[in-house]
């Protein structure tokens, strides 16, 4: 077996193992090779991991769902002879999993590059937490086992909590970390209770096996209600969104994009549980309509609460709540039109838009947080009332902010427009009011960032901002990478939708294929 074939075969395990091991090596390595080499090492590791994810993605998109089993005689042996239930740790990677994997790989790499300028004391701990968050997201989106989903959810939550509260000398940061910890724990406990209920019923933890055995009785429905609500809260849906500005606002800005990614991976878990595990449940359409209603409220409350904000990062935090609403709108529309193993054409398009918007949200909101961090770094201010005329001195940052503004507001030809275009045109057929509220939300989103742009970047130079720190190149480089991807996704949306989002939507809808891969009798 050649090295490439070996890498291809073991890529699911390596993608999770490499950042996990690196996370624990980093503190030691920091003392030996120094901070600069350590930063370069982390960036190199995450570049390698992204390459592995792309290799795996190519494999899955061209060859179909991949399974990988730990502890068996061969990693492809899902169910050894004589076994009725898959008992080993198993990864089941379909198109949805690799889509999320690519998103995680990209944002982790960008966050690592951006973090090279951070000057926090104990930065090696910072990188350890960043790599653990990355491991958690990869594990969560690749696993085919509910208990491992819980384990990776916890790894992700604990490491994210550490990042939110990383600035231990700031009371606000500690408060944000505490709130994040409580919210994550409720999410984790709900997931654990759900797993307990299902395990008690079906003697299985494997998602495919559970989906195959499930008869949608009362206990299963209670488990569904519990986990849907918990994951909606963890992803920041209104009215359980109030922790998001608190947490996003206090996280070190270089890794806020990873905390956004953590919320989006909760949405992935919601997609997976609703479609793969409960796809055959007759009441799933009702869950879809509940999600649609919460999505609309999230859009409206997110944008209207962003308007009075004067703190740059809290303003973006509320905009992120509205963005979650757009994703939930597509998901809810898909669920509402789900019937057995199929969704009507508009439901599929809504899901494609929603899945595409997950990546776009991470990029757009991540870029805006980066810009807010650059402004804060350069001027020492994040209160928009104290900022003015930055466009005259920080021309490149201003340009990047305009791109982020256009992308998040869904202005053509940016990526946000492409995904929202799919969502609006599809949900219109479900009910025109949904599209109208969505478009209203987009317009208000533009208004929010016009306010931020006008307040911070327009106007004359003011004496108190005459002296400002030069922005490090690593920050500008990381933001430039994000902008390049945003523009590419905007100009060539069909490449992403046709090659990634469409297969991902199909993989979710056609849950019987996932089940058949997970419980392939007899093995390979």
């Amino acid at each position: 077996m050649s090295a490439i074939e070996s890498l291809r075969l073991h890529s699911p395990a390596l993608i999770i193992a490499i950042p996990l091991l690196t996370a624990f090596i980093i503190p030691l390595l920091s003392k030996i090779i120094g901070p600069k080499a350590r930063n370069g090492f982390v960036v190199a590791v995450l570049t390698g991991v992204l390459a592995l994810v792309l290799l795996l993605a190519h494999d899955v998109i061209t060859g179909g769902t991949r399974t990988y089993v730990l502890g068996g005689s061969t990693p492809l042996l899902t169910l050894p002879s004589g076994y009725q239930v898959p008992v080993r740790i198993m990864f089941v990677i379909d198109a949805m999993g690799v889509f999320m994997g690519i998103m995680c790989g990209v944002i982790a790499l960008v966050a690592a590059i951006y973090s090279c300028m951070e000057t926090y004391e104990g930065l090696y701990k910072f990188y350890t937490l960043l790599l653990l968050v990355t491991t958690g997201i990869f594990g969560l989106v690749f696993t085919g086992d509910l208990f491992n989903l819980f384990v990776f959810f916890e790894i992700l939550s604990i490491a994210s909590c550490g990042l939110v509260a990383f600035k231990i000398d700031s009371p606000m940061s500690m408060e944000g970390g505490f709130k994040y910890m409580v919210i994550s724990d409720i999410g984790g406990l709900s997931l654990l209770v759900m797993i307990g209920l299902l395990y008690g019923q079906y003697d299985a933890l494997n998602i495919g096996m559970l989906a195959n055995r499930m008869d949608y009785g009362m206990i299963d429905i209670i488990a569904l209600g519990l986990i849907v609500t918990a994951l909606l809260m963890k992803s920041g849906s209104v009215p359980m969104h109030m922790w998001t500005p608190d947490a996003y606002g206090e996280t070190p800005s270089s890794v806020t994009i990873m905390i956004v990614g953590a919320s989006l991976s909760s949405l992935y878990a919601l997609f997976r549980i609703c479609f793969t595990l409960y796809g055959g449940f007759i009441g799933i359409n009702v869950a879809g309509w509940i999600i649609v209603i919460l999505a609309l409220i999230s859009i409206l409350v997110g944008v209207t609460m962003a308007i009075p904000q004067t703190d740059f990062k809290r303003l973006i935090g509320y905009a992120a709540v509205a963005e979650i609403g757009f994703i939930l709108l597509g998901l809810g529309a898909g669920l509402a039109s789900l019937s057995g193993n199929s969704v009507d054409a508009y439901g599929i398009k809504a899901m494609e838009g929603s899945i595409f918007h997950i990546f776009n949200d991470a990029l757009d909101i991540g870029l805006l947080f980066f810009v807010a961090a650059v402004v804060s770094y350069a001027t020492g201010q994040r209160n928009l009332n104290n900022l003015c005329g930055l466009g005259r001195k920080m021309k490149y940052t201003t340009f990047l902010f305009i791109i982020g503004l256009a992308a998040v507001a869904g202005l053509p030809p940016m990526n946000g427009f492409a995904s929202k275009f799919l969502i609006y045109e599809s949900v219109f057929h479900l009910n025109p009011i949904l599209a109208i509220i969505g478009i209203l939300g987009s317009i208000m989103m533009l208004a929010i960032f016009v306010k931020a742009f006008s307040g911070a970047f327009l106007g004359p130079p003011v004496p108190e901002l005459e002296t400002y720190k030069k922005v490090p190149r690593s920050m500008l480089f990381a933001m430039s990478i994000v902008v390049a991807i945003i523009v590419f996704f905007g100009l060539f949306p069909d490449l992403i939708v046709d090659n990634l989002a469409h297969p991902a939507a199909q993989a979710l809808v056609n849950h019987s294929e996932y089940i058949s891969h997970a419980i392939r009798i007899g093995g390979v």
Partner: protein
Amino acid sequence: MIGSLLSNAGVWMPLAWLFVLVVTWAIVYYIRSRGEARYHKDTEQVRPFLAGHPETSKAAMHVRASNEYWGFMEALKGYYHPLIKGHTGNLNDYICWFTCILAIVLVLVISVGV
């Protein structure tokens, strides 16, 4: 065509849109270049005339962020007052909302599914 995104109801062609944008920009630039030739930047002719009053410093005239959309928020005071009041920042309230939504979701899902 590369770059064309098909929905079930229409098509989005960002490259065509970009082409139209570039052509529009070229036309606007051409019209601008045919404009007033006697305009000189940073001279007396561009200073504002405020009925004889001295001009306030530009920094003082800049509308700060919290003053923007003042009218919008004033008009929607009835909406904003309870909304902002509801965002207490108190973790107990966050959990309370979770409990309420959990109860509603369970009632709805159970009533349909069983």
